C-alpha cells in the first residue's frame, strides 16, 4: 500500500505513509541540515579525543589536551589566594583599632573572620556565635575573659585552660564533691546567688547564712558584690546572662562539681592575620567593648 503519489492540492509527493486515510506529505529537509547533523557527530568524536570522556575500569581517558576541571579550579584558587594574600598582609600590618575605623579593612576582616569562624569556632560557639550551654554567646556584652579587641586576641591565641603556658587559668572549684560545703549549704548559697541578679528565691531560705557562705567561699574569685573577675574568668553573678543556667538545680550542680570549660589555643594553628580577623569579627558581632 505504501505508494508515493502526487498530492493535487500541494503539488508535492507523499511519503506513502498513511493512517486511517491521512497521508503524509514528503517535505524534505535541506541537505545542509543533514550535513550539520553529521558534522556535530564528528565534533562529538573530536571531543572524545581531545577531552576526558570515557570511564575505564580504574581510570578514564584523559584526552589529548590533558584537561582537568580540578586542575583548572586549582589554578583559579591559587590566583585568588595570591590576591587575598596581599590583602591579608595589609590586614596583618594594621593595628586592631585601625581596622575597625577603615571601612575597607573592616569589611575584609569581617569576611575573612566569618569564614575562619565557620571553619574553626562554629562547632562550639555556633555558626553565628550564639553559643550554647557551657559555650559563651559571643554576641552579648558579657565576657568571661574580657571583651576588648586585645583581650579577645589573647583568648583566641592561648585559649582557656588549654594547657598552653600562657592560657587563661582559673576554675570553679567543686565545693560539694571536695567536701568544702555541705549539701544544705550549697542549696542556701545557690539561692543567695540567685538573689544577686534579682531572681526569685525559695521561700524561707536563710539569707544571712547564704551571705556568710558566699563571703567565705566565693568572693575571692567572684568579688564581694558578685561582679566577677575577668582575670580569673569568674563570671559576673549579678547580670542576666548565665553560661550554664540560673535555676537552683543547675546552680547547685555548678557549686557541687565545679566548672572548667576548655577553649583550645589557636596560636600556631591559625596565622596571626586570621586571628586578628577573627577578633575583629567577634568584636563586631555586637558585644565588643
Amino acid at each position, binding site marked *: *500500500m505504501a505508494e508515493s503519489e502526487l498530492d493535487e492540492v500541494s503539488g508535492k509527493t507523499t511519503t506513502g505513509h498513511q493512517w486511517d486515510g491521512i497521508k503524509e506529505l514528503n517535505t524534505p529537509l535541506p541537505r545542509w541540515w543533514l550535513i550539520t547533523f553529521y558534522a556535530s557527530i564528528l565534533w562529538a568524536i573530536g571531543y572524545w579525543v581531545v577531552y576526558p570522556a570515557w570511564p575505564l575500569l580504574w581510570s578514564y581517558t584523559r584526552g589529548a589536551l590533558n584537561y582537568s576541571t580540578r586542575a583548572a579550579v586549582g589554578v583559579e584558587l591559587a590566583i585568588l589566594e595570591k590576591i587575598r594574600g596581599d590583602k591579608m598582609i595589609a590586614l596583618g600590618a594594621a593595628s586592631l583599632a585601625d581596622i575597625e575605623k577603615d571601612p575597607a579593612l573592616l569589611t575584609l576582616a569581617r569576611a575573612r573572620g566569618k569564614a575562619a569562624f565557620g571553619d574553626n569556632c562554629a562547632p562550639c560557639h555556633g555558626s553565628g556565635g550564639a553559643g550554647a550551654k557551657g559555650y559563651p554567646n559571643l554576641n552579648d556584652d558579657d565576657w568571661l575573659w574580657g571583651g576588648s579587641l586585645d583581650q579577645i586576641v589573647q583568648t583566641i591565641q592561648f585559649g582557656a585552660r588549654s594547657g598552653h603556658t600562657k592560657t587563661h587559668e582559673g576554675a570553679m572549684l567543686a565545693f560539694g564533691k571536695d567536701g568544702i560545703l555541705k549539701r544544705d549549704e550549697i542549696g542556701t548559697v545557690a539561692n543567695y546567688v540567685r538573689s544577686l541578679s534579682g531572681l526569685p528565691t525559695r521561700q524561707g531560705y536563710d539569707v544571712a547564712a547564704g551571705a556568710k557562705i558566699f563571703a567565705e567561699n566565693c568572693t575571692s574569685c567572684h568579688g564581694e558584690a558578685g561582679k566577677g573577675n575577668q582575670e580569673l574568668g569568674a563570671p559576673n553573678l549579678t547580670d542576666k546572662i548565665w553560661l550554664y543556667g540560673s535555676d537552683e538545680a543547675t546552680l547547685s550542680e555548678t557549686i557541687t562539681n565545679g566548672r572548667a570549660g576548655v577553649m583550645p589555643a589557636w596560636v600556631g594553628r591559625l596565622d596571626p592575620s586570621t586571628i586578628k580577623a577573627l577578633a575583629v569579627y567577634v568584636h563586631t558581632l555586637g558585644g565588643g567593648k
Partner: protein
Amino acid sequence: MNKIIQTDPDQVEDVGPLYAARKNVYPQSVFGTFRRIKWGLMAFCLGVYYLLPFVRWNRGLGAPDQAVLIDLPNSRFYFFFIELWPQEVYYFTGLLIIAALTLFLMNSVGGRIWCGYLCPQTVWTDLFYAVERLIEGDRRERMRKAASADPLKLGRVSEIVLKHSIWLLIAWWTGGAWVLYFTDAPTLVKELVTFQAPAIAYIWIAILTATTYLLAGFMREQVCVYMCPWPRIQAALTDEWALNVTYRYDRGEKRMSVKKANELRALGLPAGDCLDCYQCVAACPTGIDIRNGPQIDCIQCGLCIDACDNVMKKIGGPTRLIGYDNDINIQRRMAGEPPIYRIVRPRTIIYTALIALVGGIMLYALLTRSLLDINVLHDRNPVAVKLSDGSIRNAYTVRLLNKRGFDRVVTIDVDGPQDAVLHVVGDDSITPDRPMVVLGRDGTTELRVLVTAPSEKNTEKSIPTKFRITDIGLGEVASAIDNFVSP
C-alpha cells in the same frame, strides 16, 4: 469499517529524496518605492548600529561619557540619561515585552514587515547581495558565471576574491562595532588599531565576523525559512485583515501575453493582467513565486511589488497587481464590491493599548525610581541577643545604595521598638543617636547595625521596625521594614 493497511517493505516505492538540495537564489536588482524604503531603512539601521557607540553623553566626573554602554565589569548599563543597576534588569524584561507586542502590532498591520525591512538577517543579507551584484553583475550574469564550466579564469577568480574580501570586511566591521558597546569606544578603536586591545575583544570580533559572513553571505534565506521561529509564530498570529504581500489572482488570472489579452478584451472577453514574465520571481530574495499565495518563505519585503509595477508601467497597465493587500479584498473584488481596509480594529487597538500600558508603567517606574535605597537583612543566628542588663539586641546587615554620581552623607534612624538605640559598628560620629554615614558615588555601602531596646518595654515576640536613611543635603529618604525580635 476501516481497512487495516499492511505495509510490505518490498513494495515501498521511492518517495523521492528525504533531503533537498538547496536551490540557489539570484535576486535581480529592482527599482521602486519599496526598494527605496529598504535602502533608507538599511542606511538608518546600519548607521545607528555602527555610529551609536561614538555618541557621547556627559554624566559628570568619574562616570563614563558614552551614551550607550554595557559596562560588564562594573555591572552597569548606560543609555543616555538612564543608568541601570543589575537588580533593575526588569526594565529589560519590560523592553522585551514591548518588543514582542510591537512585533505583534506590526504583524497585524503589515504582516512580516519586520522580516522584510528591519531584521538584521535581512539588512545584512541585502547589503551582501548589493556587494555581490556590484562585483559579479545582475541575476543573469551571476547565474551564467555560477554555471560556467571554466571558473578558474583570472578575471573570475579576482571577482570571487574581491567579493569575499569585501564581505569579510563588512563582517569584521560588524563584529568590531559590537564590541564597542562594551567599553569606551574611541579608546578601544585606538587599542584595536595598535593591537593593544584585550584578547576577548579580538575573540568576539572574530566570532561575529564569522557569524555575519556565514549568515549573510551563505545561509541567507535558509535562516528565514528553516532556522527562524518567527515565520511559524507569525503564521499563527496573522489574520484576514493583515496587509500581506498579495498577488491579486482575481485580476491576474488567467495569465497570458499582452497581445492575447488585448485581443480578448477587444472581443469583450475576460483576460488576466499577469504576463507570466517571472519578474516577481526573479526579484525575490527567498526565491519563491508570490503568485502561489501566502507562503512561509515570504518575508514580505515588497520587492516583487516593485518588479511587477515596473513591468505594468512599461506595458501601460494598472500597477499593484501585486501589493500589500488582504484576501478579503480579493473576494470582494470578485464579487464586485469595493475593497475595505481595517488598520484600526480590535486587534490593533489592543496591541497599541498594551504597548502604551507597558511603556507607561516602565516610564513611570523609571522616572519615580529611587536613587537612594536601603536593604536590611536580619541576623539569622542568633536572631536576638540578651545583654547583661536584660535588654535585647538585634543585629542587621544593612546595605545602602547611592545611585547618584556623587558622594553623599545620610543619617540612619530606626522606628519600631520603644526606647531603641541604634549603633553602627565602626561608627564614632558626633551624632550617635542618628549615625551619619558617607555613601560613595554610584555604589553600595554595607553596614552592621545593632538595635538595642529594653525588654520590659518591648514584650512582643516580633515588632515591625522601620529603618530610614535621610540624605542630609538633598533630603531624599529611603526606608525598609524588618522586625525586632525578642528571644
